[in-house]
């Protein structure tokens, strides 16, 4: 499937407690996340794009195909839009078994327009063993996987996912996330993913839209938005940078692998990935400390030369430091005392000691 030109939408919707007013321009073939706290209008926005909110005014087009244009009084009904929608609580049809649920959408798509086969969707979500089961015998995680496969099998131009993991516990989430990543890699489908969980966004999204009280606060590549000090994401204990890296070496003796990103190389725990394979690495701001000289005699393996880009006060006594490393941006959360002691200022060259990294797959 070609990447196409993605989704463009301008939508307004009056709700009882706020007004949604957004302009979105999302890249095709990538995963975009709509991120915001509860009540910021994420779900309303997603529903408006799908055509499920009749009160929404504006325009929606996907890969150049117009779904809504109020100026031309054009509104394509939901069932004529090539979209997949995954609801927060899996909406499987209780009277149909898994196989029939999966076939429901696919059967209604003309064969010439089918781009994802049923087998492909089933294999991607690992649900082949569930085909004859009824929805009420499935676990929450299984239900959500069937729902995602069902949406995929209808060959959508865009897959809209409304917090598909929100109703699941941590174990079930961990069960589904790898499938979502795989979907991303294998289908290159345009996905719009609603979430209020920073870790999900860091793991899945290429592009991020921050929503607050129905307005777009910021929109751009995930790695950039996660580290922008003027945005709330780059503050607090969970703040983290995301790096796109490739595997360039393995060290069998120490059970380590080497991953290269634009700003240098990182030693990570041994990965079963082949040389040259891409992976996403998350570096939490609280795991990065700074030093003026290259430290010696330290147990920390990953020490990178970086440049201070900006500083911003975080919580009392804490400072968030934005660091540049070969075009990539990292964050370090240090104490105000240290920042003053090191006389940190924009432009200063320092060494970032990275205590730990998380591999996001």
């Amino acid at each position: 499937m070609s990447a196409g030109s993605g989704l463009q939408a301008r939508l307004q919707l009056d709700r009882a407690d706020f007004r949604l007013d957004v302009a979105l321009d999302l890249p095709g073939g990538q995963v975009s996340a709509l991120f915001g706290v509860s009540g910021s209008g994420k779900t309303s926005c997603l529903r408006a794009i799908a055509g499920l909110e009749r009160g929404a005014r504006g325009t929606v087009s996907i890969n150049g195909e117009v779904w809504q244009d109020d100026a031309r009084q054009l509104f394509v009904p939901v069932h004529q839009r090539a979209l997949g929608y995954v609801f927060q609580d899996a909406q499987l049809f209780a009277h149909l078994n898994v196989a029939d649920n999966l076939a429901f959408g696919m059967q209604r798509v003309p064969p010439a327009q089918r781009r994802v086969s049923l087998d492909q969707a089933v294999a991607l979500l690992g649900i082949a063993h569930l085909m004859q089961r009824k929805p009420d015998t499935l676990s929450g995680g299984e239900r959500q996987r069937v729902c995602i496969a069902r949406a995929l099998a209808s060959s959508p131009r865009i897959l809209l996912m409304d917090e598909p993991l929100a109703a699941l516990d941590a174990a079930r989430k961990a069960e589904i996330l790898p499938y979502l990543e795989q979907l991303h890699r294998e289908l290159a489908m345009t996905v719009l993913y609603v979430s209020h969980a920073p870790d999900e966004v860091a793991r899945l999204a290429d592009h991020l839209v921050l929503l607050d009280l129905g307005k777009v606060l910021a929109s751009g590549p995930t790695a950039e938005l996660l580290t922008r000090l003027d945005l709330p994401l780059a503050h607090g204990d969970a703040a983290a940078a995301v790096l796109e890296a490739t595997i360039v070496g393995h060290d069998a003796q120490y059970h380590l692998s080497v991953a290269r990103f634009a700003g240098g190389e990182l030693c990570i725990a041994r990965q079963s990935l082949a040389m040259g394979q891409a992976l996403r690495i998350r570096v939490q701001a609280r795991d990065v400390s700074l030093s003026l000289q290259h430290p010696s005699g330290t147990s920390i393996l990953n020490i990178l030369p970086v440049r201070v880009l900006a500083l911003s006060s975080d919580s009392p006594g804490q400072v968030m430091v934005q660091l540049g490393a070969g075009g990539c941006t990292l964050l370090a959360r240090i104490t105000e005392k240290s920042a003053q002691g090191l006389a940190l200022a924009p432009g200063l060259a320092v060494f970032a000691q990275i205590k730990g990294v998380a591999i996001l797959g």
Partner: protein
Amino acid sequence: MPTASPWGAVALTLQLAGLSTLILLLLGTPLAWWLARTRSWLKGPVGALVALPIVLPPTVLGFYLLVTMGPHGALGQLTQALGLGLLPFTFAGLVVGSVIYSLPFVVQPLQNSFEAIGEQSLEAAATLRASPWDSFVNVVLPLARPGYLTACVMGFAHTVGEFGVVLMIGGNIPDKTRVVSIQIYDHVEAMEYAQAHGLAAGMVLFSFVVLLLLYTLNPTGRRQRRGAKVRQ
């Protein structure tokens, strides 16, 4: 009074109940769907109107039907203008009366099961390319099956048990309007207790079997509906 064969009355009763149930399902489905979905202020009044036959004495219902369908009533004038003649004391009149009399017993179970299905199933169907009609046939109807079973059984059985309305608008014409319940009344009036017993026992047995059928088939229905609610 000459005693007619009981089978004429039985056949007539089954015909009446069957035809009424069929008409009720056709009328009741859109009505129940509207009641289940609408946000109009009319929902309350219409719902109350549909439920009236549950609380009204059948004679009241029969009386007004007789007046309305009579030569000076609105319905009577309409049927006359259409060249259909008058409905009271005809089988067609009984069908009209039965449909109104049993309406709540069909509409309410259907409405309940439609309401239990919820908006999100329909939205899910729409995002899977199903048109509204397609969703209704392939999602709503199968999910509402327990409701339809209850509606059929209740509508049919309630019509079979009808007496007051029939007496008021149908009279007692053998093979035309004399249904089982009227026939039993006749037998008792004529002191023909043996014949009355035969039909009355038949009615008891019939009603028992029907309710047994309903209760044995419906637990699955109830479980499905509860399951559907949990998932919403």
